[in-house]
């Protein structure tokens, strides 16, 4: 109970800061310093959000699907590559630089190429999401595998464990916290990645919708889309946190224990 109230108090500054920004935004619009067709007021945006809601949901569904498929494939790929790289040192040395290089390629630059290669359907969008989400997860896993206490491996070996058992009982569980840190970052990239690739062509999705309302100079609806993307990304990150807590119940105990001691 005490912990919960602490949690709430720690969020107070963030809520105040957010409220101040909204107030500033509203003030700027109300004062008439910025014409409303350039910067719609918060009230306009809320109105657009509500009025456009069915449309927004329709397009959000597509973007979310692309993000989810991309994320799942990204996780799978990251798991395989990181695990194999950890197992074989030479592969690690061979692939590490390439992985880093792929991360310096600007997303926005390869998106059109992907569209040219794969057409206007979901494939290029999913691919882009895979490319952007794969890296943080792979890095997280690799770091996690390496964070293992070597004495724990000694213990497992002394008990006669084989390589797979060492992986299953020691390496993988110690990598989980790092994996989830990576996954959280990736989850926030996933929707944005899908939207960016939709800008460059497609029939539905929040990115497509965004280009449409932009052409119509409907800035209030444009803002509504942006806010929806933010909300979805935040929800995804919260979902990752939830899965993390559920799948790692022991970290809960640790935190409680620490609180009791202090």
């Amino acid at each position, binding site marked *: 109970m005490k912990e919960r109230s602490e949690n709430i108090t720690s969020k107070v500054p963030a809520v105040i800061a957010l409220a101040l920004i909204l107030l500033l935004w509203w003030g700027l619009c109300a004062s008439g310093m910025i014409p409303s067709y350039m910067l719609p007021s918060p009230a306009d945006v809320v109105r657009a959000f509500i009025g456009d809601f069915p449309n927004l949901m329709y397009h959000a569904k597509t973007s979310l699907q692309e993000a989810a498929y991309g994320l799942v494939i990204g996780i799978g790929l990251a798991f395989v590559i990181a695990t194999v790289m950890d197992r074989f040192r030479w592969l690690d040395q061979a692939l590490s630089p390439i992985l880093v290089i792929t991360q310096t390629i600007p997303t926005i630059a390869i998106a059109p190429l992907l569209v040219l290669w794969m057409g206007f359907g979901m494939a290029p969008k999913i691919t882009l999401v895979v490319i952007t989400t794969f890296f943080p997860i792979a890095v997280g896993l690799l770091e996690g595998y390496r964070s293992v206490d070597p004495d724990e491996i*000694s213990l497992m*070996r002394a008990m*006669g464990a084989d390589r797979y058992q060492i992986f299953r009982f020691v390496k993988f569980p110690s990598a989980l916290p790092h994996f989830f840190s990576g996954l959280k970052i990736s989850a926030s990239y996933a929707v944005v990645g899908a939207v960016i690739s939709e800008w460059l062509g497609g029939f539905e999705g929040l990115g497509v919708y965004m280009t449409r309302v932009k052409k119509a100079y409907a800035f209030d609806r444009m803002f509504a889309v942006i806010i929806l993307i933010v909300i979805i990304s935040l929800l995804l990150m919260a979902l990752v946190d939830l899965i993390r807590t559920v799948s790692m119940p022991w970290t809960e105990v640790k935190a409680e224990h620490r609180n009791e001691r202090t």
Partner: protein
Amino acid sequence: MEALSTQHITKSFSGRVIIEDISIRLMENELVSLLGVSGSGKTTLFNVISGILQPDSGQVLLRGEDVTGHPGKISYMLQKDLLLEHMKVIDNVSLPLRLNGISKKEARMRTGPLFEEFGLKGTQELYPAAMSGGMRQRAALLRTYLGSQGGVALLDEPFSALDTITKGQIHTWYLDIMEKIDLSTIFITHDIDEAILLSNRIYIMTGAPGQIKDEIVIDRPRNDRKEFNLTEEFLSCKRKVLKTLEGK
């Protein structure tokens, strides 16, 4: 009968000899302690005996069979308790069974009844983070015992996390347990009283490079050691040990 012996074991790290020409033996049902100052190479010797470290030369024999560099045959409790934080205590403790292909459920069923005997009643479903240092060590001890189908256990400072009062109780309890489970054990300690109180024999190790300096036999039967530490016999043993440690 000889349970375990080492033959002329030498091990060096990057050119520095850590332990040199170590030959010790352990009889069935015997409790032998390895006493020596910090850094004399006691843990290194255990790593070699357990098979997780390959010696430069020498052999480890388990009932005559050469097990040098073959881990998994001798039960080993490492210097740290090394309970895996992500598993409940009962799963930690029953890990040796599961590594041998026994299912989680079956392993839990076999392990559960031993908790009380090891002073761990009611901790089955806890995570290690919620246990005190002494409880953790007992859990590690139980895990070591469950992995000891080979009948030989190595314990690296098993009681170091305990205060003197608890230690006294644990020693009595431990002697009882040892009596029951027929386990031949070598254990490392810094504590001279503990070594004399618990063991049949004491190997004294001196450092740089680590060598066995002397072997002291404690004649009094292990089940007759109540208030042993108040006797003249105990003191004379202790004097002998101290002399050897000081290198006289």
